[in-house]
């Protein structure tokens, strides 16, 4: 079922994955990407080789994905998503704790630091979760990913896709320098994603 969905996603988007700065690896990673469409996580996930797919979990907003049986099915059975509380995080129920728990010692994550799907062409500033993850898990590789055109294939608010050509590019991992501050790291991360534009 998952393999079928991945194949369909690749067919509809004609998505070709460009591995520009790294190659697929079993090494634990956090893939961080710009967010444009509900297809984003699916296409990134489908671009990974099948053995890596089982170990890579997208991080998604719980408030959106528990609404309705279809979304719940997709989030839990198909993607094995990490559902986080983004509207009202508390000390016990917050995104960082969930993400760290999900990473564990084998898994990789796909996150969207902008927070939500962006309607315009400009990237929104990255939220802090990425920085805290990098601080707590220096052993994990942080790989920038650029998503292109998926918002034209399935715009926010639409259900039916239009088969245009979309793309996903994986860049070189970035590392949190010792003593580097949040703002600096987040700016560097966003620059790394933008730099993947051809």
């Amino acid at each position, binding site marked *: 079922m998952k393999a079928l969905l991945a194949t369909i996603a690749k067919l509809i988007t*004609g998505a*070709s994955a460009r591995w520009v700065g790294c190659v697929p690896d079993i090494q634990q990673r956090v893939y961080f990407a710009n967010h444009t469409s509900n297809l984003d996580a699916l296409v990134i996930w489908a671009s990974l080789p099948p053995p890596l797919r089982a170990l890579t979990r997208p991080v998604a907003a719980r408030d959106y994905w528990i609404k309705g049986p279809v979304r719940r099915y997709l989030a839990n059975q198909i993607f094995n998503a990490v559902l986080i509380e983004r509207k009202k995080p508390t000390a016990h129920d917050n995104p960082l704790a969930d993400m760290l728990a999900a990473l564990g010692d084998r898994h990789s994550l796909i996150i969207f630091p902008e927070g939500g799907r962006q309607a315009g062409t400009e990237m929104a500033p990255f939220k802090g979760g990425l920085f805290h993850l990098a601080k707590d898990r220096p052993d994990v590789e942080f790989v920038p990913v650029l998503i292109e*055109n998926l918002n*034209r294939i399935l*715009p926010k608010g*639409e259900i*039916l896709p*239009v*088969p*245009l*050509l979309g793309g996903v590019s994986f860049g070189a991992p970035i590392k949190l320098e010792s003593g580097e501050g949040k703002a600096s790291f987040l700016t560097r991360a966003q620059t790394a994603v933008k730099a993947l534009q051809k």
Partner: protein
Amino acid sequence: MTNLKLDKQTIWLVGGVLALLVASSLIGRVLSLRVRDEKDRATVQNLNARIRAWWMMVAVFGLAMATGGIGSVVLFALTSLFALREFITLTPTRVGDHRTLFWVFFIILPLQYYLIAIKWYGLFSILIPVYAFLFIPIRSAVAGDCEHFLERTAKIQWGLMVCVYCISYVPALLSLEIPGYEGENGKLMFYFVLVAQISDVLQYVWGKTLGRHKIAPTVSPNKTWEGFIGGIACATAIGAALWWATPFTPLQSAGMSLVITLMGFGGGLVMSAIKRDRGVKDYGNMIEGHGGVMDRIDSLCFAAPVFFHFTRFFFT
């Protein structure tokens, strides 16, 4: 669809093309073993990639013909789909066009090819230029986004015309009723594609070997007068020599081939101008060595409707 006769002429046509491909592959192989400097190596690699893609195209085309026509309709419908996808990806559309594009890809495109399959000339010749042309702006206007409205509408209509309407005229050749040529239209379609594509290849070869005076350097730096004249002349000669597979006399075949090759050149030039405008080199990365479906069929698009209508006017 009519059952396409597998007669001696078809075998000669297909056999001839296969022989040509085998010879090209051998030449390509020899060249790749003997090439010395880096620039030539790149050219030879490009040539060999093109030849490989040609084998694949011939195989797919042959398979389509072998299924008695319906395979060809499906093949060109898929070709249109991939070409349209490349074209629309390249042209800026807005969210307001999303539903319109859904209509274009999933309703208008299949409908056009369905009409071709059932040979309803009266409708397939006007569905897109009349009905789709009018529907597209209406649907986009209803969606409410007026920014760059005329541009967006025009671009979608253009994409539909070139990628769907024009290309659909290739399998439409199978629907022409030419007296004395019943059931043989498959050869005519093969002849058309062959002449158009060989003209492309020969212009490239002549251009690479003798090319000096550029025709439209701002549009396409590779097109030279030497390539143009050499390629068109050779392709026309080849087309004339293939008259026996067509309902034409040798002179008529030469005339038709000239029309095909000239329109093919025009189509290639226009698609290059569009690419330049959008700032891309190739339309996509679908067929290895060719940089996109659109790049392969740009010589077919403009030639197909003209060839169809010339044949229809003079020979049916």
